């Protein structure tokens, strides 16, 4: 190695700044108008442009699940899609699941089972659980655990998350049968 080698960081500027254009998103049943550049992710659109901060940013790389929202009923990571790509779809965030006055059954179950501590992964867990219910594939505890594994919880509330989700899954199964 040469003495005192040098190192340079910073990429070259290769393109002009992206144009801002109107984008319409349907979120929790409401049409929302945004003026954004294409580089805005759905997650940042929710949190930074629409003040829907219930959807959390835990890694911004699809590695934690905190940003889970439902698009056309399917759970996705909002951090790994551009807002503009979601035009015309039905987006449901935690704010669309229930309110403090009228909790969604999953929200109630999470409280009843103490399925969270710091609460930061919780909206993602709940949206993910709704996605799991919509999929209809997980019935046993082992299946729920596997299909809830796209949501990290650093507080380690998994035992109670399983209990909460399982309660609602079983409730749904009963209603179906």
């Amino acid at each position: 190695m040469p003495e005192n080698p040098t190192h340079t960081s910073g990429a070259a500027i290769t393109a002009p700044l992206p144009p801002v254009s109107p984008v319409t998103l349907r979120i929790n049943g409401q049409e929302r108008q945004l003026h954004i550049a294409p580089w805005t992710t759905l997650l940042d659109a929710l949190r930074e442009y629409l003040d829907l901060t219930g959807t959390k940013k835990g890694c911004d790389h699809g590695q934690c699940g905190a940003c889970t929202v439902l698009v056309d009923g399917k759970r996705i990571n909002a951090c790994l899609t551009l807002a503009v790509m979601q035009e015309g779809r039905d987006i449901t965030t935690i704010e669309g699941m229930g309110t403090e006055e009228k909790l969604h059954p999953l929200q109630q179950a999470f409280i009843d089972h103490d399925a969270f501590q710091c609460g930061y992964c919780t909206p993602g867990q709940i949206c993910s659980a709704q996605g799991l219910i919509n999929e209809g594939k997980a019935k046993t505890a082992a299946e729920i655990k596997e299909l809830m594994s796209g949501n990290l919880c650093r507080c380690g509330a998994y035992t109670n998350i399983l209990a909460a989700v399982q309660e609602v899954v079983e409730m749904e199964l009963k209603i179906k049968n």
Partner: protein
Amino acid sequence: MSNTNYIGKALSRVDGPAKVTGAAKYAAEFNVPGLVYGYVVSSPVAKGKITKIDAAEVLALPGVLQVFSHENVPMLALLDRSYKDDVAPGGSPFRPLHDAEIKFSQQPVALVVADTFELARYAASVLKIEYETVAHETDLETKRGEGFEPGTGKTGFVPPPPPRGNPDKEFENAVHRIDQEYVHGTQHHNPMEMFGTTAEYLDGGKLNVYDKTQGALNSQRYIRQIFGLSKDDARVISKYTGGGFGSGLRPQYQLFMAVLAALELKKSVRVSLTRQQMFSFGHRPHTLQTVKLGTNADGSLAALHHHALHETSRFEDYTENVVNWSGMLYQCDNVKLGYQLAKLDVYTPQDMRAPGAATGLFALEVAMDEMAYAAGLDPLEFRLRNYADRDQNLDKPFSSKKLRECYHEGAAKFGWEERNPAPRSMRQGNMLVGYGMATGVWDASQQKAGAKVSLSADGKLTVQSATNEIGTGTYTIMTQVAAEYLGLPLEAVDFQLGDTDFPAAPVQGGSWTAASVGTAVKNACEALGEKLLKLAQQMEGSPLKDAKFEDVEFVNGQLRLRLDPGQAVVVRDIVQASGETKVEADATAMPNLIKQKQYSLHAHNAVFVEVQIDEELGTLHVTRVVNAVAAGRIMNPKTARSQVLGSVVWGLSMALMEETVMDHQFGRYVNHNYAEYHIPVCADIHDIDVLFVEEEDDIVNPLGVKGIGEVGMLGVAAAITNAVYHATGKRIRELPIMIDKLL
């Protein structure tokens, strides 16, 4: 019976509805008007200096407001002292953007501020910086034998006691001896919420600073000292913290950056770190430990040696209590403890859940298992034979210690007696089954804390303290304490925290919040109670006219005579009759040192685990855990159980997954993300059983609580390691135990 007795009840979290609906706002979620965004640029090199920053191209991008670096940071505080936060260790704290010197890889070197988050991120990626590098040292292995003993420094650090007895001679003379090294690598806290600060710039230049922290006052003091702000200039607010685990005990650099940019630009600024940058500051240090144990023929410990060497930065001497536990957990008259640091080109380590004990007890408790086998004793029996009824480090009795009960109740619940002690003797299908156990111990401490209570004429009680909620249940527990002491329904109590305008409280850490803030809330409620009694006595026809405070109680919304509950006044009516809109009181609680100093104050636990291992493929699952915890009075079994469940997950994670790997070619961590720094997922977690062995203890504090946030983690990693030995006959002494170590 009173229905306003809440302490000890398994109640749901009062902040639950806010958390499950997304209404709870974390630091980076206050979308104040006119907000602009800062993005931190991190050093790609580990050591050297910045030779050039070319910001012109970046500043020319429309919407980019400023590039802050050491080249243009205004004159700030000069003295090291000003950069020291409440829990800073000894040394010279890192000053962000201070000079051209690079001290560690991923050191923040610039802050790019722009109108949008995306633009700031882009502009940061095209900011050209040149560095000159010099050789770095990041490998603790090269520092063996070169450690030094740190001075005193950080709050809570207790240097190991001097040797007692004849540890060297008794070790040589012992019937059975083991002498082994135990290692774990660097671990990062990685709370789910990444560090972020929203500095709201108010008219007149004042700031509201929404910070991710475990102590709003600590953050406030830090920025006040550095930027020369008055208490009024910078209010720090932290209502919800998305996990801390120690990472928020010290202010992180995004706080400095956001405040700097807000003051300089006179704008509201948000700075959030990336997940990769979450690996750029404090961590549990890479630690090398040796434990030597000697036993007599009867299985009693003849000698115990425990030495630890861990990394610290060039600029601060981070300390934690790694080895002291070994001098107090078991009865042994010949003990030698050693603790040393070695300086590397890394950032300063930082307290991480059960700091020191998680490390030291891993080594001690694996060594105890090794010795049990060497001595031909059951590992539980071996521990019982060496049970310490007195803390030999301090030569004091314990204020309470139900560890023996933890052992017995835990073992019974687990089915320990079904264990065949021979390694490789138990199977289920084609899986090897192993049972392992270990012990934990943690400090029961109380710090000075304050609280203020205010009862309004509509019967609502507001309670305030500048403590913090990191998920431990502080909102809930404090609500319970206040409601119980003033006999109010839970719904009538609004506990508020995380605001520097509130009475002072210590950082949320050390498992001391329930004891410290809980006592302050209790004291404030009692002070208010006395005021209310006086006011009640002034009411016309008051049935309490001649009552003394000790004669009355607050129950079911009433203030009444203990011996004649029919003689009562409705609490709300007292405020209304007083003609005031509210009645207030505040109080500060301090530990009763005179009472406490004669005792050793500790919580304990015993952990039993079952592992199943597919030996051919090296896959391992922790199928059952029983964790029996004696931590004084349990304020809320529901939230306390969650604390212990989470602690078990942490112990499992430490045992099997967590390691931040340093590539010494670059002096840089390589797995700096959630995809390659593994923590458990839901599918990793199987049966976990939590038992509380309650202790009555009026010495630790008036509430009798010892704290539950950390003790539950202890013993878990060692118990798993011991179970792996029992299952496979393979003794692993370096964590994490991943597939390759089991092949």
